């Protein structure tokens, strides 16, 4: 910042000094026919030119540097903070919206940083010129300088409106970006349904909103900019008329009149730029309001101030005590749930769609916190442990597998970056993925598409299972993790699953009886509570509800 201001100032000084050198060269060199003096002043002019060049170059490099670094700082902060925000935030705010804030809004703030060096230079110019004018003829100077406070008043009168309208424009950009992002990620649905045209119409609407709101701001410009242009002209007019009259009446020398003119002309450009800076500032403020909205969103999950330690290889006994939880509070998903899984035990959680099974999974990995009640791992409330420790202890495999643009190997290694190739391949083998990976063009080095497009749902899930196996957690949560694996192939990985589950606390959410049967115990979730527990065999025999849930009623009857 200091470098930017210093180089901006030097540049300004050089720019102001250059005409003076010319004046001296003419007065003392050309007019006086003094070749020696001419050469000296021309030498000085060259030196000033060099200074202006160097300072101008440094000023520019600083300005661009400030701008791009500020852009990066905002973007980095948004991304880093968004990664810390918990699942409930991301349920509400999509990637498109956040991307728009990290790029477009950040850009507005960056622009402000870009202009700081220049702006300081211009402010100093205005102040210096004002002082010189007052020294020459304070009465005339006061008349000429009247526009200055007027410009400031006009600037502040308009600035608030810039702020609000910029926020609205940026909001429209966010909505346009969201639609692009959703269309691209859902392109299969869009193409399959021929929904491209209606979506294009919707995009045209959102794009039109962006245009309309940008023009709202332009309409402010169209009021504000002419005013900024007019006021210095009025100053010049005052010099011309009042100053001219004072010269004629002998109150002002001709030289001072010329100087006055020259100096007031020097004000035109800085004042115009300063006026624009007010809008730059307000646009940046509008954008930064949207940025702060993200940065000030508090993660619902807070790290405890004095965390307890969780052993690296904690046994993994899990208990949920009177847990209440409802997304956004509109419908209660879990209603005083009690559930216990002993260390090393495996439990299958069974229930209808929407009964809250996935919520239980998310609570265990502390993706969410319960509204009331407690989630305990080996007797510790998860809220008293470090978040990192909880997530190291609990590995969660989701139904929807997200693969990153990277090799198969790195995707599996995701959970444990230090794992060796042998470990990766063993995990893949256990997850029943080794075979199809070998068939991929580059085997483990094949780069997967963004959404794992090139793999089938079942293949993606097997990679996710390999990920979890490699993580080697104390508690493994499989949330419908084998749902897309073909029923005829699932038995291939069932053996692997039972190996993995051996001696490890495991919560399995599944629908296929054979998978459920792998668990030591089954709990049935209904109405936000556990309504029945027992082994698969016991429940099959004793519970009609269980048989209905598994659609085995007829088979059992």
């Amino acid at each position: 910042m200091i470098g930017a201001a210093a180089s901006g100032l030097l540049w300004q000084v050089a720019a102001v000094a250059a005409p003076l050198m010319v004046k001296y060269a003419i007065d003392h060199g050309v007019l006086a026919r003094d070749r020696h003096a001419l050469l000296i002043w021309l030498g000085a002019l060259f030196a000033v030119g060099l200074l202006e060049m160097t300072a101008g170059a440094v000023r520019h490099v600083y300005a661009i540097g400030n701008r791009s670094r500020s852009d990066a700082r905002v973007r980095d902060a948004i991304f880093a903070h968004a990664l810390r925000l918990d699942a409930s935030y991301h349920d509400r705010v999509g990637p498109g919206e956040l991307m728009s804030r990290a790029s477009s809004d950040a850009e507005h703030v960056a622009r402000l940083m870009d202009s700081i060096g220049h702006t300081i230079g211009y402010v100093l110019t205005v102040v210096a010129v004002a002082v010189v004018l007052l020294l020459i003829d304070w009465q005339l100077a006061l008349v000429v300088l009247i526009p200055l406070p007027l410009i400031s008043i006009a600037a502040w009168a308009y600035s608030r409106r810039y702020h609000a309208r910029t926020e609205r424009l940026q909001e429209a950009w966010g909505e346009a970006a969201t639609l692009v992002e959703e269309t691209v990620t859902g392109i299969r649905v869009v193409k399959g349904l021929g929904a491209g045209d209606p979506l294009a119409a919707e995009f045209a609407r959102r794009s039109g909103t962006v245009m309309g709101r940008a023009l709202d701001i332009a309409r402010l410009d169209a009021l504000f900019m002419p005013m900024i242009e007019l006021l210095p002209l009025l100053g010049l007019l005052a010099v011309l008329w009042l100053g001219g009259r004072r010269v004629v009446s002998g109150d002002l020398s001709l030289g001072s009149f010329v100087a006055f003119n020259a100096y007031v002309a020097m004000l035109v450009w800085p004042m115009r730029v300063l006026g624009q800076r007010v809008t730059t500032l307000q646009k940046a403020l509008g954008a930064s309001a949207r940025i702060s909205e993200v940065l000030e969103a508090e993660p619902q999950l807070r790290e405890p101030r004095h965390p307890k330690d969780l052993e690296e290889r904690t046994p993994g006994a899990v208990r949920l005590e009177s847990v209440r939880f409802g997304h956004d509070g509109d419908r209660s998903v879990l209603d005083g749930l009690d559930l216990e899984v002993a260390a090393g035990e495996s439990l299958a959680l069974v229930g209808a769609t929407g009964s809250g099974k996935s919520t239980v999974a998310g609570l265990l990995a502390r993706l969410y916190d319960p509204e009331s009640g407690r989630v305990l791992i080996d007797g510790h409330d998860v809220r008293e442990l470090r978040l990192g420790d909880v997530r190291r202890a609990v590995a969660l495999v989701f139904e929807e597998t997200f693969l990153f643009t990277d090799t198969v190997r790195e995707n599996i290694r995701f959970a444990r970056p230090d794992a060796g190739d042998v470990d990766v391949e063993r995990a893949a083998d256990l997850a029943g993925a080794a075979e199809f990976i070998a068939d991929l063009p580059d085997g483990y080095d094949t780069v997967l598409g963004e959404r794992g497009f090139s793999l089938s749902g079942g293949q993606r899930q097997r990679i996710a299972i390999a990920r979890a196996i490699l993580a080697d957690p104390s508690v493994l949560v499989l949330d419908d993790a084998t749902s897309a694996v073909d029923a005829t192939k699932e038995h291939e990985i069932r053996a692997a699953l039972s190996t993995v589950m051996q001696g490890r606390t495991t919560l399995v959410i599944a629908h296929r009886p054979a998978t459920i049967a792998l668990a030591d115990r089954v709990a049935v979730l209904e109405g936000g509570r556990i309504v029945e527990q027992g082994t698969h065999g016991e429940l099959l025999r004793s519970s009609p509800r269980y048989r209905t849930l598994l659609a085995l009623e007829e088979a059992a009857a």
Partner: protein
Amino acid sequence: MERASTKTVLRHTRRLARPVRGRYAAAGAAVVISTLITLAGPALVRYAVDAGIKKHSYHALDVAALVFLGLALVKPFAVRAQVLFAASAGERFLDALRRSAFDKLKDLPLGFFEQERAGLLVSRLTSDVQSLTELVREALVEIVGSALQIVLTIAALLFLSPKLAAVALVALPILIVSSWSFHHSAGRVYHAIRDRVAETLTAVQEGLAGVRVVQAFRREKRTLDRYEPRSQAQVTAWRRASFVNIRLFAFLPLAQATALIVVLLVAAQMYRNGSVSIGTVTAFVLYLVQLFDPISRFTEWLGEFRQGLAALGKVVGLLEAPNAIVERPDAVELPLEGALDLQGVTFGYDAARPVVHDVTLSFAAGEHVALVGATGAGKSTLGKLLTRQYDPQKGTLRLGGVDLRDATLPSLHRRIVMLPQEGHLFSGTLADNVRLAHPDASDDDVRRALRTIGALDRFELLPDGLETDVQTRGLRLSAGERQLVGIARIALADPAVIVLDEATSSLDPATEAAVESALAAVAEGRAVVTIAHRLSTAERADRVVVMEHGKVVEVASHDELVEQGDRYARLWASWQAGLAAAGA
């Protein structure tokens, strides 16, 4: 995605700018007026001094001041007109550019999306377009203004002293060399910036889209570690650009000083000889000093211009991406229904390696057919050909006798639809999601579609009923419910042919039953081609088509094929064994 050549960029620019030519012309005219007013200022001051002050004439002074006042009052209006016309032209241009980019995006083949990442495409339509704002709203108009000022000032210099004007040309080589060296590198560095921006946004998009996995495996730090070098690379790219920029305008003061020095040396000589008056020298020098002000603005806007050109090149690169599926000029409506006939259809993503080979098949109206075969047998590709995601390299597909390539795209999209495995939701309400492809559908239409598939009651139970916000990616709806939304979309579309990519996921039995009955309802009376992953589906179909290595090897009903005891019979036997092993 290729970077577009300058010629292509200009062609698209002309096309998009055509409707706003008038506005640009008006903005240009306003700039000319306000520039002339600016230039008239010093002339009026000179008149006031020569005719007024020196001759002690209040009258001349008053006249000068009055004219000045008049011009000063005109100027705000000229500036206002310039701002309004330029903004309106520029924003309309950007709007047209965004819309054509999106129109292009929706028409690109699926293969394109498998190669390009979402973040990059978002960056093309937002960040790249946005970085053009300065160029289209200010730079173009300002360049006109500065150019006019330069030309008029040069004319004044020539008028005052052709000899000194010729001497001032000594600065020209400096200007030429610096601008050549700028333009030599500007394209490269500015394209690099756009590339780095896209890479950064791609990293952000991927990290956010996968944020749950990132958090579950506490990879926040690693995700940031991988993102940060890209973010830093963007800063570095800007830094490089700043070093290229200074080649352009940092040399201006040097050129100005050089010109002044040489002019003054020569002028001093001429003044000694008496061949020039001191008044002329002073005026000449003043104009020469003034000349560099518009030159420096001109070059600054030129820099902006290069930067915009790079961004425009990226967007045009998207517009120019090859697009296989286009509507013929003489396209006709597809008939409402009829048999779907395939004749010798051959297709490969790489034409040399066909994935679907010489397939001849006929699907009768209302018939339910299952496509069966191992992974990689070509089932999914055939599905994409049926919905014209791709055109075959050889052979034809006809619906009711009309070649799909001769059909209008809207009629094609209405008659033949595909239901993919995943049920992707857009942010918005549930009802809006159902009417995705038919935004004009009324609430009643939506309810009817949901009732048809038997899902109305289920969704009406949601907190706000059909107006419930599904929120990002529909994380609150289960996989089964998302599938139901997908099926409701089909029911609303009312197509003749449905290509169904069967979901492999197992749902809980109740939801599974709901999905199956929804599918049955929507399949009623329509031709359905199912890419079957479960042979239980094949068992229920009217006919089974078995594919192997891109060829159709068996076609008949389930029972007949099992009877035949060939490939399908073997698949069936292994499926049965698998089910037994699965214990279901």
